[in-house]
């Protein structure tokens, strides 16, 4: 199964591989959410949504549905 950024644990980092372009708004891409960029899950809101990420040094919160559209390669902790 594909791993998405919604699967990250708090504090875990990964690299964005690709995403469904029809479901992810341009604004998010412009924030730096692009293939090849690193992403870290910072915080999950109390009821499980939204999720708060640091992507390419931008701090943004998005909803769970959108996060599930963004695939990620999880970094193996060194």
């Amino acid at each position, binding site marked *: 199964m594909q791993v998405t950024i919604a699967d990250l644990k708090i504090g875990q980092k990964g690299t964005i591989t690709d995403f469904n372009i029809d*479901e992810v*708004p*341009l604004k*998010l891409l*412009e924030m730096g959410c692009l293939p090849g960029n690193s992403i870290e899950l910072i915080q999950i809101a109390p009821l499980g*949504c939204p999720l*708060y990420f640091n992507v390419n*040094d931008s701090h943004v*919160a998005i909803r769970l549905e959108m996060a599930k559209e963004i695939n990620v390669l999880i970094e193996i902790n060194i």
Partner: protein
Amino acid sequence: MAQELIKVALIGNPNTGKTSVFNHLTGLHQQVGNYPGITVEKKIGVCKLSEKVKATIIDLPGTYSLNASSIDENVVIELLLNKKDENFPDVVVVVTEVENLKRNLLLFTQIKDLELPTLLVINMSDRMQLKGIELDIPLLEKELKTSIALISSRKNIGIEKLKDLILNYKHLSTEPCLNASVIDLEYFDKLRRTFPNQLLYKLWLVITQDVNFLNLDRKELQSSFTKSHADLRRLQQKETIKRYQFINDTLKIGQKIDSSKATDIRAKLDRILTHRVLGYLIFFCVLFGIFQSIFEWSKIPMDFIDSSFANLSSYAKSHLPSGEFTNLISEGIIPGIGGILIFIPQIVFLFLFISVLEESGYMSRVVFLMDKIMRRFGLSGKSVVPLISGTACAIPAIMGARNIENWKERLITILVTPFITCSARLPVYAIIIALIIPNEKLYGFISLQGLTLMILYLLGFAMAILSAYILNKILKIKSKSYFVVEMPSYKIPMFKNVSINVIEKTKSFVFGAGKIILAISIILWFLGSHGPGKDFKNAQQIVIEKASNELNPANIDNQVSEYKLEHSYIGIIGKSIEPVIKPLGYDWKIGIAVVSSFAAREVFVGTLATIYSVGSHSNEEATIKEQMKNEVREDGKPVFNFATGISLLLFYAFAMQCASTLAVVKKETNSWKWPLIQLVFMSGFAYLVALMAFQFLK
């Protein structure tokens, strides 16, 4: 000697401190207006650059890129594409900040593609050490083909350098810093050949955006260069990636970040402020604190304003030569102005708190915390901002709903925001509560009056949430749940920004609402002191004849005034609507006040003040409150008893009484359907609730 004038446009991402740069450059020499036809705020200021040269600076709405997704952002593109616009800039100043330089530069590279003289401001230089950031400015200037002003608007560093660079804008390069057309060479080549005289990037913007651009026919352009929506989006993605490649390469050599030096306060604060229990607790305390302080702190200045105007009115009456004109001043204008100015303390506090919450970055955390809960009611986490600022005024609140990406959530937010208790309801609440709720303390510390007020606020909020829930079930609109919120770093609010914001907002409130209130009080005064027919003219005679049978000649003057008022134009209008409002427990005077406050709620107090001071004969000074207390019904009981008071409070809590809000809703939803629905449903509901309350309590 003629002065040279340079036109400057300030552009930047939200949260880069663009507005504080604007405030530094222009001070209080600002003019806030609207762009023609739309309700986007337009801020223009003047800055003196040298003895001979001045600059007019336009503060454009914050935007993440030139790919607009809201009308606020459209304003930016339309100005930059239209050379004939009177505000078309000689030089564009792009404001960025050290911590988010990478993302901020995206917009910069887009603007460079428009081949305008462009200047780069890197703000918040005071945080560089804290974050372990070093910048090689000469190298960045060379790579980005621009001049850079490294400034700190907080510490007031580098502003003079910035002014200097603006002054010498003619030396700025207009060359783009990268060639984005490589993403699809064939396509862009064809475009270039077809429109050899046009700038390629402009054409691209017109193709991808919904903007108008000079004499170029959009349809022609789009039909001959048509691509499927998905293809265009793919190209836009490629373009964005291309730009980031360039930015990353540039920053790799021009920026050093030593993250071991970075002290991350943000992470620590986030852990507390977005904590699953603490987060909500803190949010609740913040809200509670705000409301508590607004009512406690503004009481003294409000009482002071109220009594000063009562004094002024009686002073005018006794010191000016008596006549029509004096009456207009003392009975129409002075109480009318008093009715406006009495709000100032509360409005100042409200705007103060709201701008502190926004400036500090806390508001985004509230959005984050509340999103899931709000979605259950068909709202977005971003609805929290309109709902909170709706406690000041629904108009900016409804405009603030613009950044909600999902149309259904945005529409519901717009529709329910007027239920939130706005500052215009406050004086109505305050005065009626003071009349019907005893000034006592429960358990020695909870003020009963304060508690009632708090209940009214909660009632408004509950109604907003409940109607959102119902609307969410009824409205069949499908839209994607896009939701992107930037979480800015925490900052201590800057005194200058907050105070300018508070002053501007208060000013526009006083003058905006003031005009309406003043006009209405003059009209009311006229209608109240003039009347048709014999009854009005011969009032004195009629009353004396009647009174001769009774034994209270002392009150004769008051009775004459009363009789006159009843037979004036306003009395006639009031009596004719009395059957409709009587079941709610109102007499015709209150009825007039309720009707006139459909223009704006705050008119209520002013209207009653005008009606009562026209109707009273005595020269004694009396505050509005005292006059209302002294009003009696035919049976001698006070007009403002508990049942009538509660009925009025409930009516004002729910009714849609604000012409300006309706106008804004029309503009924001682009149809009369929604404001009309609001008017009918809210006011109808208010009538029913007030009716039930009065019938039950009387």
